[in-house]
């Protein structure tokens, strides 16, 4: 009985091992190439689920079905206008033809190194043939508040782009895409992740930025002074206008008053000029003579004639 159990166990074990060798799963993320004695046979298996193969003779080689990463290392690349920059690109690719991929590259490590060559190569080519501005700008949209900077900035920075960043990366993608299908690879996208100046160029750029800002600041300050001087000048001029106008008017008014008064006086006093002189003189004597005044009078004054004699009036008329 134990022998029977023993044989049963062995048979079951053998069956299980065979089953294990004949069944395999493919996940949503995977695609499989079957190799028989090391050589690939048949089409790649891309549909997910449970699949069968020949146990022991056939082996599965699993590849990723998803979009895979290629994160290039930053490259120091010169542009056409001799600016040295660090360019950091990335790409996303997938194994479009796993069979071909397996035959040409074997595994992902092979693919990464091949992609390094291809994409870095195309990147260098494209960048070396274009000016820096093409890799930075996408469009020629005018900058706001450019007026204050325009004549301050160096002309080359304001140069227009012919292609622009987007078209440049499309160009790199297009060129690389022509090469990679030979390896069973499809490139979905290439992007420039980063573009930066190299150290020495950056230092110069900073200097330029500082002097640019200084020019802008100086311009603001001188504008401020200019405008404020203008306003002050305006103020001075208006002050003069107001003051001289006022003077003219006051003189006019006072003159008119004087003239009118003079006319009134003349009109009245002309009736009897001598009477006016007499009355006015009398008034003047009253106000002009005070306790500090000396009065020198002659005894011949008519006022004193009655001092001489009570009948002085009659006597003088007789004489």
């Amino acid at each position, binding site marked *: 009985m134990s022998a029977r159990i023993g044989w049963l166990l062995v048979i079951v074990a053998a069956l299980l091992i065979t089953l294990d060798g004949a069944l395999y799963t*493919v996940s*949503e*993320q995977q695609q499989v190439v079957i190799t028989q004695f090391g050589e690939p046979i048949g089409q790649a298996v891309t549909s*997910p689920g*449970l699949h069968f193969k020949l146990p022991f003779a056939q082996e599965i080689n699993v590849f990723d079905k*998803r*979009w895979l990463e290629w994160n290039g290392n930053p490259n120091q690349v010169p542009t056409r206008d001799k600016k040295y920059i660090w360019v950091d690109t*990335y790409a996303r690719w997938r194994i479009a033809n796993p069979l071909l991929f397996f035959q040409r590259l074997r595994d992902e490590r092979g693919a990464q190194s091949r992609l390094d060559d291809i994409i870095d190569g195309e990147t260098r080519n494209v960048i070396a043939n274009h000016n820096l501005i093409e890799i*930075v700008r*996408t469009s020629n*949209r005018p*900058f*706001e508040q*450019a007026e204050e*900077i325009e004549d301050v900035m160096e002309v080359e920075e304001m140069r227009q782009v012919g292609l622009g*960043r987007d078209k440049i990366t499309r160009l790199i993608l297009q060129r690389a895409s022509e090469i990679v299908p030979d390896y069973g690879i499809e490139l979905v*996208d290439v*992007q420039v*992740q*980063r*573009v930066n*100046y190299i150290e020495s160029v950056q230092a110069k*750029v*900073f200097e330029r*930025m*500082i002097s640019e*800002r200084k020019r802008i600041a100086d311009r*603001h*300050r001188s504008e*401020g002074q200019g*405008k*404020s001087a203008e*306003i*002050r000048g305006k103020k001075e001029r208006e*002050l003069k206008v*107001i*003051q001289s106008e*006022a003077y003219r008017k*006051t003189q006019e*008014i*006072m003159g008119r*008053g*004087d003239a*009118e*008064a003079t006319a009134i*006086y003349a*009109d*009245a006093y002309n009736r*009897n000029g001598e*009477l006016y002189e007499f*009355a006015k003189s009398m008034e003047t004597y*009253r106000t002009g*003579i*005070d*306790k500090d005044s*000396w*009065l020198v*009078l*002659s005894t011949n004054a008519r006022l*004193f004639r009655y001092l001489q004699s009570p009948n002085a009036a009659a006597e003088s008329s007789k004489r």
Partner: protein
Amino acid sequence: MTDDRVAFDPEDVLRMARKLRSKLPRSLGLLILAALIGLGLISAYYQVEPDEVAIVTRFGKFVSTAGPGPHGKLPFGIERVQKVPVERQLKQEFGFRTTRAEIQSSYSKDERTSAESTMLTGDLNVATVEWIVQYKISDPYKYLFKLRDVEETFRLMAEASMRTVVGDHSVTELLTVGRESIAAKAKELLSNLCKLYDNGISVQQLVLQDVDPPESVKPSFNDVNQAIQERERAINDAWAEYNQEIPRARGQAEQAIQAAEGYAVDRVNRAKGDAQRFIALEEEYRKAPEVTRQRIYLETLAAVLPAAGKKLVFDERAKGILPLFPLGAPEKQELKP
């Protein structure tokens, strides 16, 4: 059977062994069965949190999605479950990292974050830009199965998008008026890339945080702001002076004109008064000229003589005598011939 030399009965041993053997497999089997059932139950049960969705695959193939709550699946790895937080607002930070998210969050920056934030502007200047992206997983299947490193790729896409947009703006725009439009454009670019890569991510918000010129350049940028302020202040000061002095001068001018008019009126009225007085006198005088004249004369002398402090009456006939003027003497003096 009274042979005490035998300790046990071999028959009994065989009987005992047979009894054990029949019992053992059964109880062991039961134990193993129970363990298997237990393990099966554990691996068949899973729970989905309220903000999650579960993707169920059978032998690697996608079969269904499961919503929040308790669920069952085929055990022992036949069916597998991956949970994806679809309702949660997720965030990626660029140029800085939040180290403690509280009311007063604290942030850290290092070489890596400064590499993320340094970028070229459209006028070929350099700036540092910090920003965040808030997003949700809109399609869990795509999120799991389309790209191998979804999150890292998403970060690269975000950096590329931001740099593209910043590269099309001047540094002045970036620091001042262009912030909103730059953030909006970057968000649009990133969303388009998400569509292109079909990564199952939906971008909710892209917000700029600190945007600065590089450290060594900052002072000169600040100086520009200062210069603008100085300019404004110079202009405002000048206007303030103007607004202070001009109205005052106008007021003074008005005042002078009014005074002049007052003077004119005063003069005319006085003249009228004086004239009227004289005319009245003249009319009376015409009626009795000699008497009026005498009267006025004598009235005047009557007022004047007492008022004069010093008087001297001398005779014209006295000739040859030097009249002495005792200046300062109070009484009247008479010189005798």
